[in-house]
């Protein structure tokens, strides 16, 4: 029984140990730790059974009955996803390996980096709990843990501390914030005016912030310096995240008010029993809960934070945001939808809700069906059409539209990535909205390919490129890197024969399946699929624009003198990662069957 939470126990234990002994975490620590956690996660017995943990000391209850309140959940899906996430995390550390060409001195481990690593550990713990929670409140606690740690991560100024001691760089003249990092995951922040602390001089005594940070680092107090742009990004993320989590709480309270329980199992069971009293409020609660997820995944109505946050934070943290929380929530969402299906998926009155929301004035659903004219036609259409996940379709399509169109004018690389992640999120919601086996299959396929592409992308982008124009003439500097990057961009754009096209094709195929099978007209199919394809075309433009900067210009001396270009040689390990992922993208485009098998497996696990 305890075996299943070995990874959490190990994590907490190691975290406390390291905190107590004030170890400064470097990358090696993290990777080693992650690999061990991975082994612990995978090495559990009895994968196939769905296990619920009630009480650590009592024997295994197997599939518990509904009457018992369990909070913690395991199953093959969760174990698989945990291991995937841990693996992804370890890849993340390879992705963010910094360039050794930049400074000739050996790299000093900055305290910012080690603080960041501690935060990563806490985030990993929150991932595990998110994935295994069987309870709305436990989910909330873990998601908030993740969120708060992310706010902190977003605000950290990695640049300020990652210089070796002897350099005389200007630090950004920014106020420093003092952070108290206690064992309680809720930190408090005080902003201290710059004059009051010693780190405030713009030129900075050589390495003084880092010296101070290094010397004073202990479990209680750490100094973190905040760059203005990162502060703004973090603040935006914090405010918006708080609003959406308050929506989540509101939704939870509504659900609790209606159903009397927050346990997923009990909720699912009560749905199965068909208790539909006051179902509308319940469904509104579910929608509010969904808002939080949509926020984290930056789907349409909640995508505004993405460009600003991605741009503001350091590139490592952008990589983190694009890869890890998104993947966890994307893995979580189908699990919630499928297992606790009656919560989100189709019921009779849900249709009337849609009619309600989009056509104001009617309070009682029953009346709409009985009054003649526009009202009944409207709701009857919906009932006939049998898709409340039309909402999912619409959200997905609009996300794709926004991601493509808004990205067209961007010249900042990180913003571009934000818009591309919005667009990709839209595709995935489109796949989820079909609620069919093949829909989930294509969803996982797309998700994994999306993750591979992002790993590739962030490895390639590690060179602190800000503007797209800085990519000029890359092919003369480093042709193989350029080739890899080209393959990646074409895959993101969805051009055959690469994997990106295949994943998009699968999604559109599942959407086709869904539309045509429910007996809808061909016209609807045409409109929806055409819209999806057409809108993703516009995304192709900005990917191609990057490519055209690589190749199409004549080499002239001034573009070679750009300071960014001096750093174009990647390290060994990231370059392996880069090449392997590009190769995967090509191969998976031609021979996707292993991955399709895997996504089959995942879908079946749910």
């Amino acid at each position: 029984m305890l075996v299943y939470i070995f990874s959490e126990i190990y994590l907490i234990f190691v975290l406390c140990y390291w905190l107590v002994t004030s170890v400064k975490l470097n990358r090696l620590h993290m990777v080693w730790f992650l690999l061990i956690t991975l082994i612990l996660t995978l090495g559990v017995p009895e994968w196939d059974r769905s296990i619920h943990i009630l009480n650590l000391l009592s024997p295994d209850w197997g599939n518990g009955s509904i009457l018992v309140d369990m909070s913690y959940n395991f199953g093959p899906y969760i174990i698989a996803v945990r291991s995937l996430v841990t693996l992804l995390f370890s890849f993340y550390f390879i992705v963010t390996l910094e360039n050794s060409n930049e400074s000739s001195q050996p790299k000093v481990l900055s305290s910012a980096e080690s603080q960041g690593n501690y935060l990563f550990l806490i985030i990993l713990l929150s991932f595990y709990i998110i994935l295994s929670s069987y309870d709305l409140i436990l989910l909330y606690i873990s998601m908030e843990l993740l969120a708060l740690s992310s706010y902190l991560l977003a605000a950290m100024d990695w640049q300020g501390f990652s210089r070796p001691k002897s350099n005389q760089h200007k630090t950004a003249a920014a106020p420093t914030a003092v952070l108290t990092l206690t064992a309680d995951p809720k930190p408090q922040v005080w902003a201290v005016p710059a004059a009051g602390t010693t780190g405030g001089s713009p030129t900075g005594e050589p390495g003084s912030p880092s010296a101070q940070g290094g010397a004073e680092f202990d479990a209680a107090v750490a100094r973190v310096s905040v760059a203005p742009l990162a502060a703004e990004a973090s603040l935006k993320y914090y405010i918006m995240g708080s609003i959406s989590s308050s929506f989540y709480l509101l939704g939870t309270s509504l659900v609790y008010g209606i159903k009397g329980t927050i346990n997923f199992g009990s909720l699912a069971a009560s749905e199965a029993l068909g208790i539909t009293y006051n179902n509308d409020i319940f469904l509104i609660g579910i929608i509010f809960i969904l808002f939080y997820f949509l926020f984290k995944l930056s789907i349409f109505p909640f995508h505004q934070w993405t460009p600003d946050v991605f741009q503001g934070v350091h590139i490592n943290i952008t990589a983190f945001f694009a890869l890890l929380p998104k993947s966890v929530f994307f893995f979580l969402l189908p699990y919630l939808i499928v297992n606790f299906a009656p919560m989100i998926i189709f019921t009779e009155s849900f249709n009337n809700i849609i009619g309600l929301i989009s056509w104001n004035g009617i309070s009682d659903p029953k009346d709409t069906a009985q009054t003649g004219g526009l009202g009944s036609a409207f709701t009857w259409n919906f009932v006939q059409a049998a898709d409340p996940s039309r909402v999912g379709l619409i959200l997905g399509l609009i996300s794709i539209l926004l991601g493509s169109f808004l990205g067209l004018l961007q010249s900042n690389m990180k913003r571009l990535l934000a818009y591309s992640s919005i667009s990709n999120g839209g595709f995935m919601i489109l796949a989820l909205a079909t609620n069919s086996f093949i829909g989930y299959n294509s969803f996982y396929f797309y998700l994994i390919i999306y993750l591979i592409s992002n790993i590739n992308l962030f490895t390639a982008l590690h060179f602190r490129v800000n503007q797209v124009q800085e990519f000029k003439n890359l092919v003369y500097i480093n042709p193989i890197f350029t080739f890899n990057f080209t393959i990646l961009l074409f895959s993101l754009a969805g051009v055959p024969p690469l994997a990106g096209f295949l994943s998009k094709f699968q999604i559109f195929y599942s959407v086709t399946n869904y539309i045509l099978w429910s007996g809808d007209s061909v016209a609807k199919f045409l409109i929806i699929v055409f819209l999806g394809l057409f809108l993703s075309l516009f995304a192709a433009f900005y990917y191609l624009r990057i490519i055209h900067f690589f190749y199409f210009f004549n080499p002239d001396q001034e573009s070679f003198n750009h300071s960014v270009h001096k750093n174009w040689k990647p390290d060994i390990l990231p370059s392996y990662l880069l090449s392997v992922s590009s190769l995967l993208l090509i191969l998976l485009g031609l021979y996707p069957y292993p991955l399709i098998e895997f996504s089959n497996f995942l879908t079946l696990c749910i």
Partner: protein
Amino acid sequence: MLYTIFLLQIILLGIIPFAKVNIVKEITLIIYSFIFLLTLCLWPLGSININNFNGYGEYLELFFLKFNVDLVSYPFLLLTTFLFPFCVMIYWNHKMEDMKGYLFTLTSILLLLIINFTTTNLFFFYISFEAILIPLFLLIGKWGYRERKIIAAFQFFFYTIIGSFFLLMGILYIYYTKGTTDIEILYITDFKVSEQLLLFLAFFASFAVKIPMFPFHIWLPEAHVEAPTAGSVLLAGILLKLGVYGFIRFSIPLFPAATTYYFPLIETMAITGILYSSLSTLRQIDLKKVIAYASIAHMNLVVLGLFSQNIIAYAGSIFMMFSHGLVSPALFISIGFLYDRHNSRLIKYYSGLAHLLPIFSIFFFIMTLANFSFPFTASFVSEFLILLGLWDTSPIATILASSSVILSLLYSLWLMNRILFGPISPYINSYNDLVKREFNILFPLMALTIFLGILPNFFLSFL
């Protein structure tokens, strides 16, 4: 045999990044010629009807993919492998930057084209159809000559990909409803008429952009002008034929009812294309643009012949495709030679070349004759067959289409006149006639055109 072709190409793709430039050039040329000889070996003996999979055809089965060469795809295949060695030879002594990248791109285009013409799976056809855009985009953009190449490359890419989206929708629909995308099975299935109409439109959108039909033809002059010589050769020679191949292979057999239904529309578009592009050429100042617009006119004539329900016109259109694939590349190559010498493509710049470059003038003259379908050239045979077949279907169309004869005469002769004859241009300081290598490039093309003009049965026998 097909297996060796693929294998060779993949080996070539692997070798190119790693060897020195000179060796790579030679190896590429040898392998391309060898591939051409291999496709010659597949020459059909005896006449069998089209689309016969069991009777004739090299058949290759790889994992789950089936490749097949049959009578429909054979001319295209031959044309493709015939033109590729020329593409390498054009740049043999050229001081072109990044020769290896260029050859790599070329080889990938060849691989994709061969896949395109030999797959039996609709989905793989689509994949190769679109995948060609990647190397071509890079080809036009990187090795093009002028600043406008960026716009041209993007335009080319986006026109084609938007059209292909409709094709993708059609494929999705077919895949969903029929459960397969294999051609052999699809040929036997029936589509409802209403389905056929819509699906035909979807397929048509994509193919109509590739053959440039009237409203979607703008990318062609841009792309041709901005592309490097070999790029234009490939574009004009083969890529336009992709659309025609799509028609022959997919639209017409799969949706016969829709073909007859849409014939008036296509006829109108084609004739408009012919007239419009022919008239547009008269005002052009750029040499390549003239030939590009001429390509539009020829291809529209091909489409006209395809869709008339007449076997004579059908044969004529396939033959015209082949001959156009010989003539237009030859013209583009000649213009490329001029550009290599004088770095200009303005018509006003050149005049009186017959005095200075006699051998070049002979080739240019004969190719121009072929361009406007002078008798004795292959284009004449094909155009005549098309018009002959079209008469039965629709006399009005024939009358309007035969105006293309006059119009093409107009611009071709006028072009030739201005370049070759007349007073020697004051801008030209030096003159250097065709080198042996260039002679060797142009000569086979010209010879084949005339040869096919005199003995078309060589080719028509298996149509």
